[in-house]
Every structure is written in structure tokens, then in C-alpha cells.
């Protein structure tokens, strides 16, 4: 099971990093979401993988799964979900007002230089 989970995290991270290095906004957003999935699973495993173990204290149970990473993952999921929504809206706004969705679009150019002589006229 360790191998399976570790491979899943690794694959998600690799694909996420590849996508965030793309030039257009949409793949980058997908890449960021994949990275957050990877980190959520990673956080979950940071409390060790214990199958069939309850996370809540109960009578007659000796082996518990660590409950803290589950709380951490919940927080991380909520935050990353909201942040994905924010980044989608912002990139949509940027795309609609700029007419292109390249992440590295050129900055605006300076206004044409006016010669001092023209100004004096």
C-alpha cells in the first residue's frame, strides 16, 4: 500500500509540475489543482498508513489512526478548493480583459516618446 500511495503522490506531483510550467493559464490552473491533490494525499500519509484503524477514541480499541493529519487535510482541502475558484475567476478576468491567456504575456509598452522640441512648439 505504501508503494501505491507513494506512486500516486509522485505521479500527481510530476504531472502538476509539468502543467504549471506551461505557458497558458488553463493548464497552469489544472497543474496547481493536481499539486494540491498530491499535497492533500501527502498530508494524509504523514500520520502513517494504518488500515482499518479508527481515528476516534473508543473503548476496546488499541490501534488508532492519527487523527491530526485528517484535520489538517480537511483545512487544506477547503483552502485549496476556494483558492482554485479564486484563480479560475482571476484568470478568466485577465483573459477577458487582455484577450489572451498567456501567463508570461508581455507587459504594456511605454507611451511613444515625445521629443522636447515637439512639446515646446
Amino acid at each position, binding site marked *: 500500500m505504501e508503494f501505491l500511495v507513494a506512486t500516486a503522490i509522485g505521479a500527481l506531483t510530476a504531472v502538476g509540475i509539468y502543467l504549471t510550467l506551461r505557458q497558458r493559464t488553463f493548464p497552469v490552473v489544472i497543474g496547481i489543482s493536481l499539486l494540491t491533490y498530491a499535497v492533500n494525499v501527502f498530508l494524509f500519509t*504523514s500520520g502513517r498508513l494504518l488500515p482499518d484503524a479508527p481515528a476516534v477514541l473508543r473503548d476496546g480499541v488499541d490501534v488508532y489512526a492519527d487523527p491530526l493529519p485528517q484535520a489538517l487535510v480537511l483545512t487544506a482541502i477547503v*483552502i485549496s478548493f476556494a483558492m482554485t475558484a*479564486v484563480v479560475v475567476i482571476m484568470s478568466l*478576468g485577465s483573459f477577458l480583459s487582455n484577450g489572451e491567456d498567456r501567463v508570461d504575456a508581455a*507587459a504594456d509598452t511605454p507611451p511613444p516618446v515625445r521629443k522636447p522640441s515637439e512639446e515646446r512648439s
Partner: protein
Amino acid sequence: MSHWIIAPVLLPAMLAAILILTARHDMLLQRVLSLAGTLALLVVAVGLFWQAADDTITVYLLGGWQAPFGIVMVADRLATLMVLITAILAPLVLLYAVGTGWDARGRHFHPLYQFQLMGIMGAFLTGDAFNLFVFFEVLLIASYGLIAHAGGKERLRASTQYVMYNLLGSTLFLFALGTLYATTGTLNLADLAVRVAALDPADSAGIRVAAVLLLMVFAVKAALLPLHFWLPGSYAAAPGPVAALFAVMTKVGAYCIIRFYTLVFPPDLSLTQGLFDTWLMPAALLTLAMGMIGVLGSQRIDRLVAFSVIGSMGMLLSAVAVFTPQGIAAALYYAIHSTFAAAALFLLVDVLRDRRGTVGAWLQDAMPVAGGAVVAGIFFAAAIAMTGLPPLSGFIGKLLILDAARDSALVWWVWGTVLTGSLIAVVGFGRAGSQVFWRAHQVAGDVDLQPQGQVRDRRTAPTALPLWVVGSLLALLVALTVLAGPVNRLLAATAAQLFAPQAYVAAVLTLPGKDFEGEVVPTTDNVVPDAAPPAGANQRLGADDEEE
């Protein structure tokens, strides 16, 4: 247990909710409430600072749960100092935003501003690593809204980049926290300090990865080379008052580096040897050089100031990387100075952008700005402060850093980079100033033209309030210069407290709180690593053994 520590977090949070729920349509009410809130915050911050000034470390257990199971807030000298800096900056910048009408150009400026303050205050006061992440997110989410405030093509594009970069930073932070938790089984800073120190050096791969990942996360926040790319574009595109408030955000990164690497990974810890002298110091020096060269190379005055912020962060972190009490004290002095200097410059750039007509922030020929002499004088003083020329506090800060670096192995590199970098920055600021203020008179020539700013300025003549705000920021720098002696003694005491983390650890772990059964138990044996670990940790350590 005093409840005042939670006030800097609660006050802006409640105020933001009240603003958005009840005062959404009444700009005047929003302004009054928001200003009153930041002033109240200042009073609370002064109180906390006063409380911590006699070396007491005040701990607040949220919900009364015993540390390390509950979340703690800790107010020591460093945290209260940073809270005080933010609380001084906040009303001034807010006053500027109100005075120039920036707050009315988009929606929800005041609630976002308050949430931003809540995040920054929380990040300074928290004693828990995961809670630090959450407060980072709060301040980032608010900053996403603020940076895109008032919209516009260029601003939206820059803020999209900013959001994406910081989302990646947050993901990295979570990876770091996961590694940290997997290795030590705790995320309470004081508890981490105890457990990291007790780790077996032979089995330390995880903790070393966590230490480097955390350093990278904070380097993103502090705009340290090569993770600085987000700063120039987004700070330049942000509305002036927002950029001025963000001057304290890079300091959050610096604060976290100082906090983590004095408390959790102290300099004498063998596990993380070489992290500072091998990695942090060269990165800081490269940041300094890059920032100052950027100042010289910028074509826009707002990018120029943004690059000077990067340069000042490099300067600050090169003092941190020495990792002696003297170095930390110098870095803190420079942090106070550069926060106010950068804020003053960003506000001034906003004034210039507004008054230079179509040319805006571009360093090109334009007609003289309205109120030229006063604006030019303020720019001159702010540039002197930022580049670290005498007589203002930048010079004293730089002297302290140079002095602190004398013990470092890289002393000549530090001296060379700091001094050459300052020279380049002086040339860069000189070029910008002469282009904006002197060249303008050449352009105008003898023709008696209306200065462009007055033609374009929104319906009214330029008001004096923005310049008063910038002036009072400069007055703070003058005060910092005049009071350099007492401030320095204070910062030396702060650094001394940081280098004796036992007091911090003891204060957090011995405060009695509720345990699992909800009973108040005064435990003192948590401090000793060999004493029986709490039940949750037992379980986790047991899981460790099974794997091996």
C-alpha cells in the same frame, strides 16, 4: 491568562465582517470604522509591546487546551515588535487610501484591508506551524483581492501571476508541514524545538528536507533570489496604498525565517548545519545585487521601487544569515527602517503616477508635476533613506549590518556586495529623480504651460493629505534615526531572547490547560524530552517502530 494577545487577530476579523455586513453601501461609515479599527489596533499593539518589553513571554491557549494539543498564540519581544510595526503602518496607509479616494475605486477595499491585517497579525503571533499556514492563507487571500482592487488590464494580468505563484508557494508550505509532522509528530513550534533537538542525527533525512522546504517557502514570501519573480510585476501593478501595505508582507517571510531558524532549527543544531552559510547567505547577497541592478535598469518608477524592496530584503537577510545575536538585531533594525521607507516610496510613486499625466510611471519626458518642489523634496528624502545614505536610518541600519558581518566567513563578500549595491542604487534613484523632476523643467522650457497633473487630476486640485502621510512616514524614519541608541538596545534584547529559546519553550509547554478529559492539569514534565510522551505521540512512535 490575558486575552489581549488574541485582540490583534479578532479586532480586524470582526471589523471586516461588520463592514461587509452592515456598512457595505456607506463609504463614509466604512472609512470611519476602518480608521477607528486600525487606531484601536495600534493601541492594543503598543500595549502588547509594553507587556513583552520586560522579557515576559505571554502565551494564550485557544480554547484553553493544553499545549501542544491546542493551538497557542505567543507574544514575545519579536512577535510584538512586528505587530507594532504593522499597526503603525496600517492607519497611515489607510489614511492615504481614504485621502486619495483609492478605497472608492473598487468594491470592498476596507473589509479586505482588515482581513489582510488579521492575517499579518496572526502570522506574527501564532505559536503553531499549521496555524501559521492558515494565517498565511488569510493574508494571501485578502491580498489577492487588494492587488486586483480597481481592476484594469495590466493589474489583472499581474495579479493572476501573483495568485498562481503564491498558490504554488502554499502547496510547497503544505509539503513542508507534512514532512515536518511525519518526522516529529507535532506542529507546535515549542514542541518542535524540543523534538527536533532530540532527533537521532543518523535518521535525519526527513527533518533536513523539511528545514530546506520551509526555508524555500519563506524565501518565496521574502522575495529571495531565485524565488523573487512575483514581486516586481505585482507590486508595481498594485494600487499604491496596497503596495505600501505589502511592504510589511515581505517582512512576514523574514520574520518566519528568524523565528523558525532560531527556535526550531537553531544555528548550533548539527542536523541543519550549512543551511545558512552555504545557502542563505549567497542567496541573500545575490538578491541584494539583483535588486539594486534592477533599480538601475527599471524603465518605470514603480518597478524601480519594487526592485529596491528586493534589494532591501537581500540586505536584511544577509544580516539574518550571519545568525549571531548582533546580526539579528541589525536585521530587525533594518526591517523597521525598510518597511517605512518602502511604504513611503510606494505612496510617493502613486502620487507621481497620478500627477504625471499620460506618461504615468514611465521614466520619460513629461511636464513638471503639480507641487513639484515639495514632491521632489520628499522623493529625495525617501530615496536617501532607501539607498542608505546618511543622515537617515538606512545608513545606520547598513552600518549595523556591516558591523555584524565582521564575524562571518564571507565578510568581504558581504561588505563588497552591500557597498557596491548601495552605490548602484544611489545612481538608479538619482537617474529616476533627475528624469522625473529636473528633465521636466527642460521639457517645459520657457513656455508657461499648465502642469499636466492639474489638468488631469480628478475634478479637484491635488490635496495635501497624501503628502502629509508620506511625510509622516519619513518623520518615523527620522525618529528611528534619532532614537537609534534606545531602539538598538531594545533590539539587542530581542535578539538575546531569540537566542535563548528555552524560555519560549518553557512558557508554552508549562502553561496549564485542559487535557483530554477536559480537566486542567499543570504539567511540567513535557519540557523534558525523555519524560513519557503524551498518548497521541506514543501511538505515532509505535507506528514508527512497526515500519522499521
